[in-house]
């Protein structure tokens, strides 16, 4: 079993867990979910399960310690004057901060060592070479447990929420363990908040017929995306990105679009499966995508793509940084110098810079990921800086920004900008990304399409037609969802013939057009690598 896509997971592991869950008395169901989660983790990462157990232990102890300090504080300020209360609160806040920082740094430190030490030391060695120094560091090669980038952030958010007294520390180690390692979310998120998800996890309501069917429909939709597009496009994308020197700019563009499509289908498809599984167990796992390619700006895009990562960075980096005294002082000073609009932009730029450095690095330890983060940071800041100018131009030219044509332009522009970012994201290094981008601009042609060679690199003409058809279907579904319509509920209200025809069409499409069986090598979930 390698992922949520494997047949052994979908047709053996998951059904066994669902059946066992519904057979057990309600108060014991969460224990089965925990056991299943650890079994799932063990099957994927083996002995590396020690990392997730250690992270759980650190999170548990950290939460209890911070809460103990709060309890002590509460006891001390009970019958005390207001001025004295303030001093006591500050004293205990400092203590809490020390423990919060300590535990968060340990959690983060494990992630940093496993994920970034190789990259850091490689760059140190490069510097040593530049300075003609003999000494070199050995580059360590660590095995990373599955989902470490996800559960680490989830654990840190839990500690911060306990510190901020948004939630009470969990007294039961097992229940906290389930929150951190719940098998549908451990591999690729979403990054859940304790306050949203925890109670649902141990409420453990019986699986109703509706939950089962809705969950299965969502899972099937995820399989549709994965098996019709993700694996199908992989050969072509790998060929173009590995051998870009052999192809013209037209191929770079096709590779770029296909990769963006592949990434979206893979990640959102996985989320469909994950959310569908959650539904079966009565857990409303938060959405991670909201029609991202209908975004009208890069800022808008990041409220629609990998939503839980974006909100994590917003709540735990952007707001804390922008609300520091230093940032407030900078804002005040900047307002005086450059006005009320541009003043706050400077302060938010500092906070955004922190967010986007972290966002880039979270995805991987290489310069192209850092570039990816800085690329989006630059686009967002430029948009903010030029917004007054653009509004002026729109006024002068009498452009109706609510016009469908203008909205279409914004959507296409944003999609193109996102795709360029993904080109660098996927490229095999910074240099390759730059070369590919240059080729796309300076050597663009339709030659490969005109000569038919486009259909000889792993995708033939029928494959392209199928991909376009799937894009069309996803577009229509996204349009309906954008209007706020819940598609599954709408379908559920239709007559049985129409409903079942749609379900059969979905299942049969996966079976006929799916990339499985002889000659196909399934792609591992892409975001599981981050």
């Amino acid at each position, binding site marked *: 079993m390698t992922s949520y896509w494997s047949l052994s997971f979908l047709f053996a592991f998951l059904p066994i867990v669902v059946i066992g869950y519904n057979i057990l008395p309600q108060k014991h169901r969460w224990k089965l979910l925990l056991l299943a989660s650890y079994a799932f983790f063990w099957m994927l990462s083996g002995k590396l399960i020690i990392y997730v157990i250690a992270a759980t232990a650190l999170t548990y102890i950290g939460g209890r310690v911070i809460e103990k300090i709060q309890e002590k504080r509460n006891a001390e300020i009970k019958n005390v004057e207001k001025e004295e209360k303030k001093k006591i609160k500050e004293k205990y806040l400092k203590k809490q901060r020390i423990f919060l920082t300590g535990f968060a740094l340990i959690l983060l430190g494990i992630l940093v060592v496993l994920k970034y030490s190789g990259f850091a030391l490689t760059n140190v060695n490069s510097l040593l070479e530049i300075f003609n120094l003999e000494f070199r560091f050995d580059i360590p090669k660590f095995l990373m447990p599955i989902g470490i980038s996800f559960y680490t952030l989830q654990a840190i958010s839990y500690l911060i929420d306990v510190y901020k007294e948004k939630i009470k520390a969990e007294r039961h180690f097992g229940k906290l363990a389930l929150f951190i390692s719940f098998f549908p979310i451990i591999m690729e998120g979403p990054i859940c908040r304790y306050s949203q998800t925890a109670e649902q996890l141990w409420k453990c309501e019986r699986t109703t017929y509706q939950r089962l069917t809705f969950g299965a429909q969502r899972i099937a939709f995820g399989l549709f995306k994965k098996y019709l597009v993700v694996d199908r496009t992989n050969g072509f994308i790998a060929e173009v990105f590995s051998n870009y020197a052999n192809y013209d700019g037209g191929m770079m563009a096709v590779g770029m679009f296909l990769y963006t499509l592949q990434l979206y289908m893979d990640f959102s498809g996985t989320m469909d499966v994950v959310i569908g599984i959650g539904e079966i167990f009565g857990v409303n796992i938060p959405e991670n995508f909201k029609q991202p390619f209908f975004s009208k700006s890069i800022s808008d895009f990041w409220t629609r793509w990998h939503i839980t990562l974006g909100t994590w960075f917003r709540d735990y980096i952007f707001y804390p940084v922008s609300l520091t005294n230093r940032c407030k002082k900078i804002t005040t000073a900047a307002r005086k110098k450059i006005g009320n609009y541009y003043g706050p932009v400077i302060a938010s730029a500092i906070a955004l810079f922190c967010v986007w450095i972290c966002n880039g690095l979270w995805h991987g330890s290489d310069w192209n990921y850092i570039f990816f983060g800085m690329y989006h940071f630059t686009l967002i800041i430029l948009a903010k800086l030029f917004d007054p100018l653009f509004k002026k131009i729109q006024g002068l030219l009498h452009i109706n920004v609510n016009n469908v044509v203008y909205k279409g332009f914004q959507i296409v522009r944003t999609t193109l900008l996102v795709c360029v970012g993904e080109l660098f994201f996927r490229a095999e290094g910074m240099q390759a990304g730059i070369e590919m981008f240059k080729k796309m601009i300076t050597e663009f042609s339709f030659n490969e399409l005109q000569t038919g060679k486009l259909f000889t690199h792993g995708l033939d003409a*029928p494959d392209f037609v199928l991909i376009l058809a799937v894009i069309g279907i996803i577009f229509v579904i996204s349009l309906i969802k954008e209007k706020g319509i819940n598609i599954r509920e709408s379908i559920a209200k239709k007559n049985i013939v129409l409903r079942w025809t749609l*379900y*059969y069409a979905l299942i*049969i499409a996966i*079976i*006929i057009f799916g990339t499985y*069986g*002889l*000659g196909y090598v399934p792609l591992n979930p892409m975001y599981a690598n981050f």
Partner: protein
Amino acid sequence: MKNVIKTIVFFIILFILLVIISRIFIPKNNTDDAGLDSYGRNQILGEKDNTVDLMVLGNSESFTSIIPMKLWEDCGYTSYICGNPGQVLPDSMQILYELSQKQDFKVVVLEANVIYEDGPLTLPATRVLYHVLPISKYHDRWKSLQIRDFDLKEEYTSTDPLKGYFHRADGIKPADATGYMAYSDGIFDISKRGKLYLKIMNEYCKANDIKFIIMSVPSTVNWNYEKHNGMQKFCDEEGIEFIDFNMLTDKLEIDWNKDTLDGGDHMNIYGSIKLTDYFEEYLSENNLLQSHKDDSSYSKWNEDLEDYKKIYGEKHREKKMEKHKENSV
């Protein structure tokens, strides 16, 4: 209760739809472009029903083992090699079952190298799925479906004049036979799953009056004494005939400088001639097959023999000349 019934009905209808769609997607012929997998071994489907008496199964070792056309020419025996590269034991079992529906085999020979290839645990389930719902195997044919596929009737027209024997077995690459079949009383045991599959095949053959033989083709790469001991032990316990050509290389005068295609991994035509000579005698002495030489309904086999001679006839003559020279000296 209503929901349970609804679910059952949903899956029954889905199953029916998939069965119907499978009929469309199943290749309707066994020609190269029809989409049937393992093109080589499927040529037997083009033969008339109940005309092939002996079948050889196995991986690539099988199709440089005995020569069906030599068996025909010398003895009038009809045989076919239904091995394919990378065949695993569950596949051998399935082929035996499927082809037994079309041919009345008297002898089935399993080349031993395949016995050590169980395949993954999920393989039997996959094969059952392929059998019950062929759409799961042939779904990729959506790109190449034609009008004739909607006819739903299979018509296999392609046959192989060499009856599954390798078409390019005339190369020579000498083998280093140092240490080959060095004596050992150690046992390299067959896996539990392998034994299970073999027992099932043996029982199936017994129930259908088929003589089941396990054969090991000479190979300096794939065989050793420990494997011989393990196989012999199992066959003795199960009452299965085991012909280990690796123990007969002296008798057969296997020359590792001339009789191997690729440095000892596979036999070539010269090696196969020697194996087939021995096998013919074995089959005759044990009255396992009858000659169809005088049966006019097998005239196509004589036509195929001519094609075979065009490819390998020269090699047979070379061997006869060699033998004649040796006998004269």
